């Protein structure tokens, strides 16, 4: 089969909708367009039933006890906001301290910053050089004021899979609620809210081959019964936790996406991991001075679809342009509006110079072996070409220590 360009290798950013998901959604745009909150006619009942079914599909994927524990939202950013702000508000008499990590998604970090402005205290835990948080650090950070610990299941940049089960157990022992941003790990690594002692979990459809703009917050109903204050007021949808006419079409697609994953994820992980390893092998074998960011590939602590590497002496955006038929992303400052390199790489202690040279590859369901080989060979060729163009590579080859030079920072 001929290779189709461009090639998509940015599955951490988003994923295409699976054809099975799309097919399930289509009737809900047109014939079955009812408002799930309309109680007086068939159109409404149909919508309500579809949403109820999707709720079960989502609950099954994460092993929630009851479908009612799923609150539909507009996506994981909203879910993270609702979890943190909702808990902070509801439990304000109980405490005012939240623990999280430095490598969370901005939807968690910026929510925490806002809560700090409102008088809460937030501890941002460091991670080790592979991006993993230590359970002992979480333990030591808990005080009698702590109401919530929020740790992501897996990191979107370097793929580090956090020890969620252990942190969940610790939180249970200490009577602290535990929120998990599970967006990147769902369907790629084990996630079971009951076995892992998770009280709240954020997920989103568009990272698991569902549509954009729909997600969920899992809110545990027993042992303990978790309460949150609504952040969107209105018609009292979603048992008062999130008002707003439900995105029935999106929710139907989200449900189907979860069902597909429940059935296929273990096999899918095997396929993707083999492809990721093949990509890494081919790159590392053919280039010197390539550095892996994040946990070792065979550590069992890294997402199977993630490869994040720094190609020393080659700036990330320059490389992305050179491989413009391949969609990836970079931690380089040049790609960001702020001109700051990735805060995640910084939290791992990755040298600033190397952060600028990082590329994140994200593989997925529709990645083929041919694509992997094509991308590996293209990257190898372009890195060599750009190194010939790099004054830093030339200096390094001449034995000049780049760090010894007095650079004029600008």
């Amino acid at each position: 089969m001929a290779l189709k360009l461009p090639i998509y290798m940015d599955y951490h950013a988003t994923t295409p909708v699976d054809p099975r998901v799309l097919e399930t959604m289509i009737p809900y745009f047109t014939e079955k367009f009812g408002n799930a909150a309309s109680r007086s006619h068939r159109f409404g009942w149909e919508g309500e039933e579809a949403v109820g079914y999707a709720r079960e599909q989502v609950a099954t994927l994460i092993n929630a006890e009851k479908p009612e524990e799923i609150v539909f939202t507009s996506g994981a950013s909203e879910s993270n906001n609702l979890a943190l702000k909702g808990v902070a508000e509801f439990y304000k008499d109980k405490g005012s301290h939240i623990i999280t990590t430095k490598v969370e998604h901005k939807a968690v970090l910026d929510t925490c910053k806002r809560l700090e402005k409102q008088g809460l205290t937030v501890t941002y835990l460091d991670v080790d050089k592979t991006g993993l948080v230590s359970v002992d650090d979480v333990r030591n950070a808990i005080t009698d004021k702590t109401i919530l610990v929020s740790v992501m299941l897996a990191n979107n940049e370097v793929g580090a899979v956090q020890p969620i089960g252990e942190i969940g157990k610790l939180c249970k022992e200490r009577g602290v609620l535990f929120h998990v941003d599970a967006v990147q790990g769902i369907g790629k690594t084990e996630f079971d809210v009951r076995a892992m002692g998770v009280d709240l979990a954020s997920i989103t459809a568009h990272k698991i081959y569902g549509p954009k703009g729909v997600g969920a917050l899992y809110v545990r109903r027993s042992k303990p019964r978790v309460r949150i204050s609504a952040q969107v007021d209105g018609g009292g949808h979603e048992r008062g936790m999130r008002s707003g006419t439900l995105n029935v079409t999106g929710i139907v697609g989200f449900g189907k996406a979860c069902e597909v994953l429940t059935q296929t994820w273990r096999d899918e992980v095997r396929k993707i991991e083999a492809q990721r390893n093949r990509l890494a092998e081919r790159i590392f074998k053919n280039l010197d001075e390539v550095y892996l960011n994040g946990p070792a590939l065979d550590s069992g602590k890294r997402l199977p679809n993630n490869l994040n590497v720094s190609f020393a002496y080659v700036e990330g955006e320059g490389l992305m342009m050179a491989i413009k038929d391949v969609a990836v992303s970079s931690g380089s400052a040049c790609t960001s509006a702020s001109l700051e390199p990735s805060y995640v790489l910084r939290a791992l202690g990755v040298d600033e110079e190397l952060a600028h040279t990082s590329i994140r590859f994200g593989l997925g369901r529709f990645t083929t072996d041919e694509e992997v080989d094509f991308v590996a060979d293209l990257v190898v060729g372009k890195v060599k070409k750009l190194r010939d163009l790099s004054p830093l590579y030339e200096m390094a080859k001449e034995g000049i220590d780049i760090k010894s030079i007095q650079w004029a920072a600008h």
Partner: protein
Amino acid sequence: MAYSDKVIEHAENPRNVGTLDKEDPSVGTGLVGAPACGDVMRLQIKVTDGGVIEDAKFKTFGCGSAIASSSLATEWLKGRTLDEAETIKNTDIVAELNLPPVKIHCSVLAEDAIKSAIDDYRKKQASRRAQG
């Protein structure tokens, strides 16, 4: 962000990539930027006794716009006198390459590299005259 055709063209076929002997008294070298900032440009000029730039070479660590800016700069430098070369402004580069606002600093870096290479050449010449 989408790149302009000219940036892509220069980045894919950079002109005048290479290295001149920085010990050669007729060569001026400018090395600007910083690895920690994600961009380093080295621009070199070879100048005739009559003060005309007969050759220019560059190597750049940076984004596509930085590579294109320095590639364009070397093209413009060749055949100019030093005084003419000094009049090249980053805004000329921005206009020629259609750089968006976030990429203006890449063109500033190229202007700095030109200035710094000319400076280096002049310093070398002055110290030669002083010596002999």
